[in-house]
């Protein structure tokens, strides 16, 4: 390359003719961080595009955000998307406190940086905690689970699960000798609680009878009668079609299965053990297996980024307290930490749309 062109290129990217400036007149740290974020954004972009392909190939069987994510901690009932909205809001707010910390840094306002950076870290921890609850809920699943009906169709269940009051012992096994009624207070550690014992029995074909008269066999061989309140407003949303029932439409409730025969269908499937509770890497209540794998992978990879972001912010926070940047004469490190933190927020904006909304 001749001397002339070399100078032109340098001028174009803002290096100056003496070549003694970094490209674009930016600090190398920020420049490199942007290039890292560019590549990381390509990774997330690929995830979401391949999610789109998987989703498209399953048609109506793909779970719908507002049907799958409609629970709140500590509160009964269904609140579609409310929890995810809360998580999104927490992340937006922590992004704002971060940008305020950066702004305070530009004024060399150490107290301001400390205040806003601390709030950012707290916001990040709140987000991680929310994600932990969401994962836990996703893994444990709903009270009803998903059932495979006798015609070969598969359906998720909406409605209010009647509370299990107690198991009335008929034949006591080794763990419940002399016990009349098994309640949440005197249940064995193996069975954990009534709900756990019930779902465990359902999956292992240890339930018999019908909706009004359920018999359960516990892990130690105890046979008992299940006393349980009646389920309310049970509706089946068919996700995979069978011989009798076509796929239900999300917006048209008349295509959902409801009425008295639904309860019979549901408990018949439960007696046969054709029920799935929650999700993991090999079983999935909500829809096609690949759906839960994508859920764990995409939100997990994002959560991993949030975790790293919190750790980076904590290191920067300690340095701010120690006065490292005050002595250095600028708070550019806060700005760089901020860039990464905003990127995490940016990714969540896209995950929110493409995983939960669409």
């Amino acid at each position: 390359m001749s001397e002339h062109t070399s100078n032109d290129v340098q001028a174009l990217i803002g290096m100056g003719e003496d070549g003694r400036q970094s490209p674009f007149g930016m600090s190398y740290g920020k420049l490199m961080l942007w290039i890292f974020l560019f590549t990381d954004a390509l990774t997330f972009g690929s995830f979401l595009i391949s999610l789109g392909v998987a989703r498209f190939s399953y048609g109506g069987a793909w779970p719908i955000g507002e049907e799958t994510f409609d629970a709140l901690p500590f509160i009964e009932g269904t609140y579609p998307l409310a929890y995810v909205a809360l998580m999104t809001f927490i992340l937006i707010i922590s992004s704002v406190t971060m940008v305020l910390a950066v702004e305070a840094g530009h004024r060399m306002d150490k107290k301001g940086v400390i205040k806003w950076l601390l709030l950012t870290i707290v916001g990040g921890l709140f987000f991680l905690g929310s994600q932990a609850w969401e994962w836990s809920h996703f893994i444990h699943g709903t009270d009803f689970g998903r059932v495979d009906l006798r015609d070969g169709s598969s359906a998720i269940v909406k409605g209010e699960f009647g509370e299990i009051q107690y198991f009335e012992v008929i034949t006591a096994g080794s763990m419940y000798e002399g016990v009349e009624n098994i309640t949440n207070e005197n249940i064995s550690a193996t069975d954990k609680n009534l709900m756990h014992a019930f779902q465990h029995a359902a999956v292992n074909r240890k339930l018999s009878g019908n909706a009004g008269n359920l018999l359960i066999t516990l892990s130690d061989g105890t046979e008992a009668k299940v006393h349980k309140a009646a389920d309310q407003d049970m509706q089946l949303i068919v996700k995979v079609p069978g011989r009798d029932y076509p796929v239900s439409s999300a917006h048209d409730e008349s295509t959902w299965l409801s009425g008295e025969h639904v309860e019979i269908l549901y408990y018949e499937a439960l007696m046969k053990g054709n029920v799935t509770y929650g999700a993991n890497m090999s079983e999935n209540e909500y829809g096609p297996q690949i759906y839960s794998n994508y859920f764990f992978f995409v939100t997990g990879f994002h959560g991993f980024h949030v975790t790293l972001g919190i750790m980076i912010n904590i290191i920067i926070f300690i340095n701010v307290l120690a006065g490292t940047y005050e002595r250095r004469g600028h708070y550019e490190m806060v700005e760089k930490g901020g860039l990464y933190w905003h990127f995490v927020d940016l990714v969540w904006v896209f995950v929110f749309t493409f995983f939960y909304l669409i």
Partner: protein
Amino acid sequence: MEERDDIIEYSLYYHHSEEEGKKKRRKIWQVTLLLSVITLIEVLCGAFIKQGSPAWEVVKVSFIIMTVIKAYYIVYSFMHMGDENRLFKWMIIGIYIIFIIYMIWLIGYEGIELFMRMYNAPIF
């Protein structure tokens, strides 16, 4: 410490006064309000307009548009991309957009090809 002349410090130029700070903070809160309102609209649409209903196609497209608007404000305002060198801006964002559009096209193309092979039927 000995003064080094091979390290050029740019960050020092980024300092601003209390006056400018006030203006910047106002802008930050405006963007916050905008992001929150867009998120609220998205959540309400998602919760109340069901998939497959007549309005859904419009809602779906508007979700993507709203997401891009949010992304624009995060990158340009929060990440200060708006204040960076113009060429650098296009080097990062322009190339990213080209890559993503290429990837979407590529995967759509391959997807159609696979569909035709698996079901032995032309999609168009």
